[in-house]
């Protein structure tokens, strides 16, 4: 059965190559049957990759340890859930999984466009098939999951303990979904370049794909942060690790693209810039994959390190860069803007600044990530760059973005008048100053934290005022109740109002980040019955009483658990446990932290050390001295809530529905929704 998977992979690879050649040739020569054949090969490749991936999962479930990949990432005691997720636990399987997701998206794109965008589709199908062929080629020639060992071991090596976590099972697939979904707008951009149709059609066609890719990439990054927070056991969620940075790079350019396409849609400007942004986003996705798997830069992610694969990825990346640059150069005369920028004080100006900040952030993260290699190449000495560097250069940029979030959506298109500025910004500026004053008087002196709250208040107020104005106007003119008017307003222009919700989530998330300025930490060794105290920046005092230590065998591991009674300001506040897990098969120990969550802060308990762990496991020492590290992390829950709000906002924007009415449809008697959206919508021609 498993061998069928390898055969399917080979057939899929040959079909993808064949389909890719047919698609481009059919497009250039106008041979519809060739293009149709190429499109059918996309479906076939998807079907074959399902068989191939199914075979790998079956090998995991059936404990076929003769396969090197299965033996390396599973063992008999591993739960079924983790055996299934073994498909993407290692490098080899994850490449097959990547190809499977891309084939799924490719099939959907081909099916969606079977009767439209026909001048794009040959090149779209061709591009998707070439990328698919590349991934399958890497799997077949450099990292084959169906590779058999010389002997069949009785058991496998088991899964890395840190990967045996719920968030880790969904973090990589979500990230891959984001990376692969960005291939679709990339393919349409290539098609637009080849066909010469560089108007807004390729952008409107891929609008939802871009949003979908951004949705998955954003959530993938947030899931990774959640995993780091609960699993790595040091109380952080973002570490500016090269692999984390690699996922952030395409997110930054993708977010810039989401904003700048609006200028092209509304004003017919920035055509070349948008093409460059989406090409860059896809290239950075490939770069991220290269960086993750090469091991060239030291990382906490000890994912596979395979130099052969690194060189293959680098070669493919170079090929893509050359082809993309050549296409843009070829069509350089077709990027003539349809309108001109009237004023820098306009929404276009705000979006340009927004793009500048995103690109600056991307380049600084890229530079910092690659700096050890660059410095070693130039000076012969590896100069490392750690989180303090990234924080210093990126926090000011983040604050600038936070302010722009409030300005961009409400400033007028074309040219903002003084009246427009006063009308839109008086209340938000007033609220922001009031919040700043209250926080200052409350003792908040950390500059970045204070700025974050002030700018966050400004942006949040602009969003609330926008919703309030729209809802109130609609309620008055249509005679609706406020809640109904609000729902109708959201339905009226989902993309715009979904975007506002995403911005609100971003503000909440940033406030969560700012809380880190007030983290507190204590470390103490305790005997059972002894206490330690830690103060919260919100004025509370937590008292932790070490109760007992227990050890027991569980599936795949032995758990050693310390129980701690928590009291907040003297009142009982539950029990926290922190664990050490000793994984039998891999002979590795991992920590599990205890977290007490409140709306405004987390109490984070780490089992830092046990003076006699063997005695605990053997039952000879039930009362060992234990070292606890305790942190109070203010506003961390806001990060996850902000992420949830962003996800909801993106879903609102993604949800299928009628597009906003265009000005041609405006009747002499203007309806209120058109008035509300007037400054954003009516410029469309």
């Amino acid at each position: 059965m498993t061998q069928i998977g390898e055969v399917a992979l080979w057939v899929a690879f040959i079909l993808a190559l064949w389909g890719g050649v047919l698609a481009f040739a059919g497009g250039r020569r106008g041979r519809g049957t060739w293009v149709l054949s190429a499109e059918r090969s996309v479906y076939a490749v998807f079907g074959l990759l399902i068989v191939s991936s199914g075979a790998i999962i079956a090998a995991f479930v059936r404990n076929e340890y003769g396969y090197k990949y299965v033996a390396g990432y599973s063992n008999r005691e591993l739960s079924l859930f983790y055996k299934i997720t073994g498909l993407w636990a290692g490098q080899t399987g994850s490449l097959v999984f990547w190809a499977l997701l891309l084939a799924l998206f490719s099939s959907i794109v081909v099916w969606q466009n079977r009767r439209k965008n026909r001048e794009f589709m040959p090149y779209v199908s061709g591009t998707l098939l070439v990328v698919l062929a590349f991934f399958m080629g890497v799997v077949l020639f450099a990292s084959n999951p169906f590779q058999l060992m010389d002997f069949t071991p009785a058991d496998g090596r088991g899964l890395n303990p840190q990967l045996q976590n719920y968030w880790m099972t969904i973090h990589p697939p979500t990230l891959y979904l984001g990376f692969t979904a960005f291939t679709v707008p990339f393919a349409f951009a290539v098609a637009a370049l080849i066909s010469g149709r560089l108007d807004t059609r390729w952008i409107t066609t891929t609008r939802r794909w871009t949003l979908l890719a951004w949705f998955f990439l954003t959530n993938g990054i947030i899931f990774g942060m959640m995993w780091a927070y609960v699993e790595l056991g040091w109380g952080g969620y973002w570490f500016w690790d090269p692999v984390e940075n690699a996922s952030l790079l395409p997110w930054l350019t993708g977010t810039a693209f989401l904003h700048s396409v609006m200028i092209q849609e509304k004003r017919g400007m920035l055509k070349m810039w948008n093409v460059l942004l989406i090409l860059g986003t896809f290239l950075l996705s490939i770069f991220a994959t290269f960086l993750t798997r090469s091991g060239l830069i030291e990382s906490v992610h000890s994912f596979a390190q395979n130099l052969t694969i690194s060189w293959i990825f680098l070669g493919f990346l170079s090929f893509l860069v050359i082809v993309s640059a050549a296409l843009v150069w070829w069509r350089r005369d077709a990027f003539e803007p349809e309108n001109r920028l009237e004023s820098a004080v306009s929404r276009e100006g705000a979006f340009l600044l927004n793009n500048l900040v995103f690109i600056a952030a991307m380049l600084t993260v890229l530079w910092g990530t690659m700096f050890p290699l660059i410095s070693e190449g130039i000076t012969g000495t590896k100069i490392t760059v750690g989180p303090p560097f990234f924080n210093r250069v990126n926090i000011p940029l983040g604050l600038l973005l936070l302010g722009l979030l409030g300005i961009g959506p409400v400033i007028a298109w074309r040219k903002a008048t003084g009246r427009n500025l006063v009308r839109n910004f008086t209340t938000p500026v007033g609220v922001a100053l009031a919040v700043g004053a209250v926080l200052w008087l409350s003792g908040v002196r950390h500059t970045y934290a204070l700025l974050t709250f002030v700018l966050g208040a400004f942006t949040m107020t602009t969003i609330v005022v926008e919703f309030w104005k729209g809802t109130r106007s609609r309620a008055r003119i249509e005679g609706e109740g406020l809640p109904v008017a609000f729902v109708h307003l959201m339905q009226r222009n989902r993309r715009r109002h979904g975007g506002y919700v995403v911005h609100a989530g971003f503000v909440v998330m940033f406030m969560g980040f700012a809380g880190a300025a007030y983290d507190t930490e204590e470390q103490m060794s305790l005997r059972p019955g002894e206490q330690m105290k830690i103060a919260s920046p919100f004025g509370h005092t937590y008292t932790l009483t070490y109760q007992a230590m227990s050890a027991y065998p569980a599936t795949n591991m032995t758990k050693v658990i310390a129980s701690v009674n928590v009291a907040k300001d003297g009142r009982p506040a539950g029990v926290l446990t922190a664990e050490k897990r000793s994984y039998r098969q891999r002979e590795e120990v991992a920590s599990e932290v205890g977290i007490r969550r409140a709306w405004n802060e987390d109490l984070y308990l780490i089992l830092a050390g046990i003076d006699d762990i063997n005695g605990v496991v053997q039952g000879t020492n039930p009362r060992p001295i234990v070292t606890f590290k305790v942190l109070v992390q203010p506003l961390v829950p806001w990060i996850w809530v902000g992420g949830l709000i962003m996800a909801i906002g993106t879903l609102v924007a993604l949800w299928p529905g009628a597009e906003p009415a265009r000005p041609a449809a405006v009747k002499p008697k203007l309806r209120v929704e058109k008035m509300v959206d007037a400054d954003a919508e009516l410029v469309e021609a």
Partner: protein
Amino acid sequence: MDVIETVRRARAERMNSPLENREVRLRGRVRRAGILLVVLAAIVTASASAAAQVSPAQAQETADEAIGRLRSPFCPGLMLEVCPTTTAEALRDSVRGMAAQGQGVKQIVEGVLARHGEEWRAVPKRSGAGLLAWLVLPFVLLGGSVVVWTRVRAMRGQGQVYAVGGAGVTDEERARLDAALREFDRVEDEA
């Protein structure tokens, strides 16, 4: 008794002579200056000792900052502050010890790097090759701003605002847009 009386008189005579008086006063001044010097030396020594004995809070702050500028030689990719190994804990203790002795952040960081290697520095120096790391952000922001500014000026200099291609706004649409915006403003003002 006569001998004693004679000595007393001789002393009294010496004391009364101007030369002898000056000598005595000089001796007294020298003695006082000596005492003052001893006191000053004691004060200086005490002050230096007090400077070396920084307060625990200051020492903790210095140690935290120094630890925050170091990557862990014992955990690949992790900062020293979060590396969970016992050797990392020992290094953190050593840093705290140096801070308690009155060493500054820079001194501690350089000391640790001298022992463990330059590659564990988390924040690049602002000199030499390390400066390159810091230059990219101002360079990108400045360069990007210049490019955007140049483009904006070029666009505005061309004077034509609308309708280069078919997607431009016609006069009729422009009038309708202005009317809509006026109506929008009116509704808002009323509200």
